[in-house]
């Protein structure tokens, strides 16, 4: 009668999806934020495409990173505040697994659409169509890594009121390597050079995060809840 691990994971995923359906607007918000932030730059810097093209990879990446960061801020907070997380911690199930399932669902709902939107924004900033695969691929690997790193930070800062800035502070330095290699890959692709190096590095970081992240999350969460 006791549910297996797979069932538990499915339950968490089902719950997230239900919440997402009830608040579909909150699911599209990171996407729209991403679009809005990328449009800020041409306004603040210069409207000419030839100038924009040079900074486009960086701008898209920074915008994706901030969108991911903002949406992660409230990844666990509602659950902690209303006591659900306490119940999870007392459920006798591996907390790391529950948190990972929640994070992955969150990425599927918010990160993936962002990845699919990015090529269009890149084009609007003057990137050639040929870099689409690299842009999308690097962002897919990168935002997934960012989600896990962000989730660790969110778990750490969830006990702190007004934690969003603290979260940014903790997580941004960790995320810098992702940003650097991601933007580098797109930049290389723009100039028609080989991109395997940075992409492999991104993949390696993602695997590392997947392997160790969940334990860090659950440890951080237990500390936050005490």
């Amino acid at each position, binding site marked *: *009668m006791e*549910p297996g691990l797979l069932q538990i994971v499915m339950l968490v995923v089902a719950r997230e999806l*239900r919440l997402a359906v009830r608040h579909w607007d909150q699911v599209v918000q990171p996407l729209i934020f991403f679009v809005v932030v990328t449009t800020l730059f041409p306004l603040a810097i210069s409207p000419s495409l030839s100038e924009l093209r040079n900074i486009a990879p960086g701008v898209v990446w920074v915008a994706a990173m901030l969108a991911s960061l903002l949406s992660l801020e409230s990844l666990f907070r509602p659950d902690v505040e209303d*006591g*659900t997380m*306490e*119940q999870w911690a*007392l459920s*006798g199930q591996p907390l790391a697994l529950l948190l990972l399932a929640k994070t992955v669902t969150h990425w599927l709902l918010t990160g993936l659409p962002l990845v699919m939107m990015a090529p269009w924004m890149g084009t609007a900033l003057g990137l050639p169509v040929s870099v689409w695969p690299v842009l999308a691929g690097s962002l897919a690997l990168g935002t997934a890594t960012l989600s896990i790193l962000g989730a660790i930070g969110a778990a750490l800062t969830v006990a702190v009121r007004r934690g969003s800035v603290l979260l940014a502070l903790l997580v941004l330095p960790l995320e810098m390597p992702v940003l650097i290699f991601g933007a580098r890959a797109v930049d290389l692709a723009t100039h028609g050079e080989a991109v395997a190096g940075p992409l492999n590095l991104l993949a390696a970081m993602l695997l590392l995060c997947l392997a160790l992240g969940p334990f860090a999350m659950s440890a951080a969460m237990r500390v936050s809840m005490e």
Partner: protein
Amino acid sequence: MVTLAEVSHSLSTTAGLEVRGLHLWRGERHLLRAVSFALQPGELLQVVGPNGAGKTSLLRCVAGLIEAESGEIQWQGAALRTNRDAFHRQLAYLGHINALKAELTALENLRYSVGMRRQVSLEQTQATLARLQIAHCADLPARSLSAGQKRRVALARVILSGASLWILDEPITNLDVDGIACVESCLAEHLQGGGSILTAAHQPLLEHHPQSRSLRLH
């Protein structure tokens, strides 16, 4: 009406909880001083004491949510520290807050929280809600429930969890007179089925029950 025996599944028979020499400091205050007690299956222990005596702290300590400075907590003969997950699988905890998600309906809340522990059918869930007199609230989002209705949903979670040890912190907060009577009958049934209960409350619960004792904190 469903009986709890139907709802809560086979309870393990050696559900003994033993707490020995628990000490807890909060800030400068030495809150719990050498608290010891034992709780056998079928027993209810009610922690009483004035506001701020440390009832909530004791309950959270036993549940494993805060760590005591010193002292030992044993569950079925083994130290809690060493078999925490197994202990948690037999524990249902209800704190001062209800752990309901405001956006989800009562039924959904129960589905996702009870589902973590065991599979219950929709009928069982609805029967429990009916038993707690909130069948009509099943499909309302928790946000729009009244204080007492929320508390009842949280109690339904405990009942449905099938855990053998219930730790309830002032379970009857915000409940009306009917509600209290109803909760008491649920508690009595749980005891009868061999479960054990640790509660804190300012109003005596199951006062005349033969298996009900109380522990006073100062």
